[in-house]
Every structure is written in C-alpha cells, then in structure tokens.
C-alpha cells in the first residue's frame, strides 16, 4: 500500500496547472459564457494534447491512454482549479460509456468515436438523470442512452438552451430519435458505468474549485486591511479558512480512493464530500471578500458560481448519501 500520487501523477498535475495558468483560462471561460466557444475549443485542443481526453479511452484505440481513473481525478482537479469551461466531464463519460460497450461486445461505436474523442477533435455530451445535457448546443455529438429501450443514439438536435447559475454552463434536452449506435441490455449498464466516471470527474472538479477559492481568499485577506489590520489576522477569519481547508483536505483522499476502486458508493462518498467542501469554500470566499466578491467582475466569480452546480450535477448530495448507505454495513 502506497496511498499517494506517484511522481508521474504529480508531474502531470503540475504540467496541466502550468498549461492552464498560461492559457488565459478565465478569459476562455468568460467567452464561453458569452456564447463564443472558440477560445474554449483552443484550450480543449491543448488539453487533448496533454492527454486529458485520452484517459478514459482504452489503449487499444488510437490515441488511447486509459482507462486511468486516478489520472482523471488528478486532471479534473486541475480543470476545476482553473474553471475550464465546456463538456469536459461529459466527454470523458462518453468515452467510458463507449469503451464499456466495446468490452461487452458492442465495439462499433467505440471504433468510430473513441479516437476523435481522445485526440480532442470531437467534443461530446450526454444527459444526466434529469434529462439535461451540458453544452448540448455546442458539443459535436450528444449521446443518449435510453435504458428502458436499451438503445444508444446520437441525438439529432436539442431543445431550448437554459443557462445555469454558472453562466459558463448551458444545458439543453437532446431531441428524441437520431442515429442508433447500439442496442441491447448492455446499454443501461454502460450508461451507469459512464455516470460513475462523470461523478468521479465532477467530484474532482469540485475539489479543484474548492482549492482555487481557498487559495484566492487566503491571498485576498492577507492583503485587505480594515480597522488597521489585515483581515486575515482576525481569528474568526482564520478559523473559517481553517475549516475550509479541513473540508477539502479530507475530501481529497476520498476522491483518490474512489478513483482506485471505481465503486459507485466510493465515488458517491467522494462526490458528497468534495461537493460540500467546495460549496463551503464558496460561501467562505464570498463572505471574506465582502462586496467585491459578490460581483461578476473579479475572476473569483468563475469559481463561486460553479461550486453549487457541480455539487448537484451527476448525483446530488442526497443521492450520493443514499448510495453510500445502500452499500454500508
């Protein structure tokens, strides 16, 4: 047992952090929110070059590096830390879905779609349990698994686009029908497996969002003075930030443990903890920034607005906890 990231995994995180720091990611997120996806797609290509979208694609496929769930957790923590826009989680989940179907003997859609997903040529989305798909309006393909009918289809379009409290998130319901990619009882199982990958990647994003909020707030309260002292020297401020770190520091090993086991209950536990810790970090960051944190002008807003939607996406807190209990004891 050696429960720590390998040097390679740490280096991978570091290189993504450097890449995203140097790539104008906040501006790309703002453009994405304003409807211009070009800077985001350029970022997407760079992330694909770094291997991010190949991690769920088995090595047997061109460009595939996976399946590597721990590296997915590592990468998506960085994507969350930099507020990367777009259907990043959904693209990885789509790859997991197709790979799983191929393992179960339904390989045609995987052979067709996995290589361009791995290379970043193709972006994908898919709806979660409530029927809404992130970025269905701009993703290249929208996969819809109908568990009852046992059918996987390429949606032919989508309904009206709705904006989230995070304006970089736009959701739409895929239109019914479209090309049939696969059929049979294995579709439902593969869709559940894909939802596990989506939950894992979302938990990782949450964790990164939480750390970004904490780091920015620690920096701010170190500089901001009121009543003649740095705000960060007030004990109530210090304790609130200590609690924020506490939540994140205990969510992190749950995330890595879930990536190792890939069990639904472990992923749900990690998602519940990371989602709550990131949301608590957002509440803290807003309160300790004061009015300036309440504006859309600081980049801080990119993370503040993301914490709650990620907490609810791909398994809300109640659902996660129900999974944990169903598995416990």
């Amino acid at each position, binding site marked *: 047992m050696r429960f720590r990231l390998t040097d390679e995994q740490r280096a991978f995180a570091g290189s993504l952090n450097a890449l995203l720091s140097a790539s104008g990611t906040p501006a790309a997120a703002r453009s994405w929110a304003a409807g211009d996806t070009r800077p985001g797609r350029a970022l997407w290509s760079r992330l694909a070059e770094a291997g991010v979208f190949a991690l769920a694609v088995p090595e047997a496929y061109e460009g595939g590096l996976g399946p590597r769930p721990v590296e997915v957790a590592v990468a998506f923590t960085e994507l969350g830390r930099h507020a990367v826009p777009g259907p990043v989680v959904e693209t990885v989940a789509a790859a997991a879905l197709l790979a799983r179907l191929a393992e179960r003997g339904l390989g045609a859609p995987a052979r067709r779609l996995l290589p361009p997903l791995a290379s970043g040529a193709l972006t994908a989305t898919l709806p979660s349990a409530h029927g809404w798909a992130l970025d269905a309006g701009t993703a290249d393909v929208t996969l819809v698994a109908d568990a009852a009918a046992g059918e996987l289809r390429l949606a032919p379009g989508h309904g009206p686009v709705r904006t989230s409290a*995070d304006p970089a998130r736009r959701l739409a319901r895929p239109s019914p029908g479209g090309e049939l990619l696969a059929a049979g009882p294995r579709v439902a199982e593969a869709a559940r497996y894909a939802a596990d990958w989506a939950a894992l990647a979302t938990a990782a994003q949450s964790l990164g969002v939480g750390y970004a909020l904490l780091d920015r707030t620690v920096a701010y309260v170190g500089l901001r003075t009121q009543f003649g002292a740095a705000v960060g020297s007030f004990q109530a401020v210090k304790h609130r930030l200590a609690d924020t770190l506490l939540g994140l520091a205990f969510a992190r090993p749950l995330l890595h443990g879930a990536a190792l086991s890939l069990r639904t209950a472990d992923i749900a536990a990690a998602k519940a903890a990371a989602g709550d810790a990131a949301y608590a970090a957002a509440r803290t960051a807003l309160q300790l920034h004061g009015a300036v944190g309440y504006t859309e002008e600081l980049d801080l807003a990119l993370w503040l607005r993301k914490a709650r939607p990620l907490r609810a996406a791909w398994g809300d807190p109640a659902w996660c906890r129900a999974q944990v209990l169903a598995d416990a004891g």
Partner: protein
Amino acid sequence: MDLTYTGAQQEFRHQARAWLAAHVPGDPLPSLETAEGFAAHRAWEAELHAGGWSVVSWPRRYGGRDAGLTEWLVFEEEYYAAGAPARVSQNGIGLLAPTLFAHGTEEQRARILPPMAGGGTVWAQAWSEPEAGSDLAALRSRAVRTDGGWLLHGHKTWSSRAAFADRAFGLFRTDPDARRHRGLTYLMFGLRAPGVTVRPIGRLDGRPAFAELFLDGVLVPDEDVIGAPGEGWRIAMSATGDERGLTLRSPGRYLAAADRLVRLWRERGEDPGLRDRVADAVIGARAYRLFTAAAAAGGTAAAESSLNKLFWSEYDIALHETALDLLGAEGEFADHAWAEGYTFALAGPIYAGTNEIQRDIVAERLLGLPKGRR
C-alpha cells in the same frame, strides 16, 4: 402579554388584502436589476402610492396613513403573502426617510418625501468606498465648501440601485483635518448631475444591482445637507441602526417565503431527508415574526438589531439553500424562481455591516465581553 389584533387592525388587514388581490400583477415583474424591470417596478410604486399603500407608517401629509408599527407589520405580511413585487424604493423609504424624520428639516421632508413615496424619485445609497467597507469611518470622499453649498469629489462603490436610480445619499468628509468619525457630513445629490459618472457593477448573476460613482466637482446646495456639517457620523449611525432593524427586512417576507418552501416540498413528494430543514424554515419565520413583535412592544436596543440582522441574513440563505437542494440538479437554472432569491440572499451577511462585525457587537454590547483586537 398578547398577540391579538384590534378590530381596527383586522379591518386594516382586510383592506390591504383586498386592494392587493385586485392590484398585484398576475405575472411577476421582470427583475428590478434590469432597465425594463426597474421601470416596471417604478410604475408599481406609483400604483401602490395611488392606492395609499406605499408608505403606510408615514404621516398623511407625506402620503402615508399614520399607521402604527403593528399595522405596518400587518401590511408587510399581506404584501408578501400576495406575492407583490420587490420594493424598488426600499433604500429611500427604509434608510433616507427615517433619517429625514429624525434629522431633516420640514422643508426637506415636504420636498423629498412625496416623490419618494410615489416612485417619482428613486434613491440609491452611497456609503461604501473601495477602502472603507466594514470600516466606514475610513471614508475619504470629500465635500469642499463653495458658495451656497458643497462640491463633491471622490469615489463611492456598492451603491445599490444606482445603475437606474435618480438620486443618492451618503457621507462625505467636510473637514479634512478631522480623523475617522469626525468631520463627516450627510448629503444628498443627483445621480445625473454634472460631474457624476455612474459605472454599473454586475453582481454574481450579471445584473447591475449596484454601481460605482465617480464624483468630480458635483454641486450640492446647502438645502441638500441633512443636519449640521460634521454631524454626519452620528446621523448615519442612527440610520444604520434602522438598516439593521425592523424596516430592512419585515417578517412578512419570510413568512411568505417559508410558505412557498413548504409548498415546494409538498409538490416534490415531501422528501423526508429535507423534512427538518423545511420545518426549520417555518420555525424560523415564526421566530422572526415574534422576535419582531416583541421588539415592537418593548423598543429595540441598538445592539439587539445586530441579533436581528444576523438572524434574517443567515435564515434567508438557509431557506434558499433548502429550496435549491429540493430542486436537485434543476436548482442550477438561472431563470428559476428561487435562483434570484438565492443570489439576493447571499449578499445578506455582507452588507449593512458584515455578520462578523455584528457578532463583535453582540459579544461586546449585549454580553459585555472585552473588546479584542478583532
């Protein structure tokens, strides 16, 4: 000790209810933090005023009904229960008007209050500055003496409503040699006067709920100074006491919100996992109503208004979080009825004196704990 209404109070309630039932718009107005919504809310203020319901607690000569505090609380309950629009004139009615009643001249009241009551003049507040948030005594914007008035210079921020409002009120440094609390003066000025630049600031949902004000030689005639020059701090402190008190958040708002939450919970199948939090919203609204009733019956100490502010600001967030949790993944949609309320609630622990400051006040003034370095 009783909680009963007189016959006249009950009659007042029925009148308010009937008028509201006949006049409250069937569809919600657009958000008041948009140009279109601001205009719609201003028109609603005029309609409310025409019905005599805009400022029930004011004297009749300024457009009110001379109603007592209990009647005002009754009106607020009916107002929110009817689902009536948010009050775009809140800054004026809740902050400036009490200041004018306490410290203004009769000429000022007669000139300023009637158009405030009718929505003709909508007021913004201009307290904070970039380096003076919680620490209001650190204000730097100044007013320089000129013939028959003052010239304003400086930079205000977090000015609520200022993106679309007509006029603003705030504190300015008139004695550059006096430190901190001293040498501040309470002034009013027009937001479209020469020398004023208004830069709207988007809040988290992008709507310009407040603005920065750049002031470059803005003329304020002497008639728009409230109280004596140099007395601004004392006057403002009595106003911020009010801001934390009854008039900022009436219990009716939360009683109605808790009712909506219970309906949402029922519609969504009464998730027992959220049962206790929904019940706490009901209990909290009731507690706030009764705390307010007790304060109304007994007079409120200034530090008790800190308890009040802590309560409603944290209650409001908890209530909206519960609603969003009930909605699950759908709770993220920005156009959902609960989403704007949630964004609005998030500001509660920050403005009108942060909750950290309020807790310091409660600890020092109500519990008598030693003043620390904070």
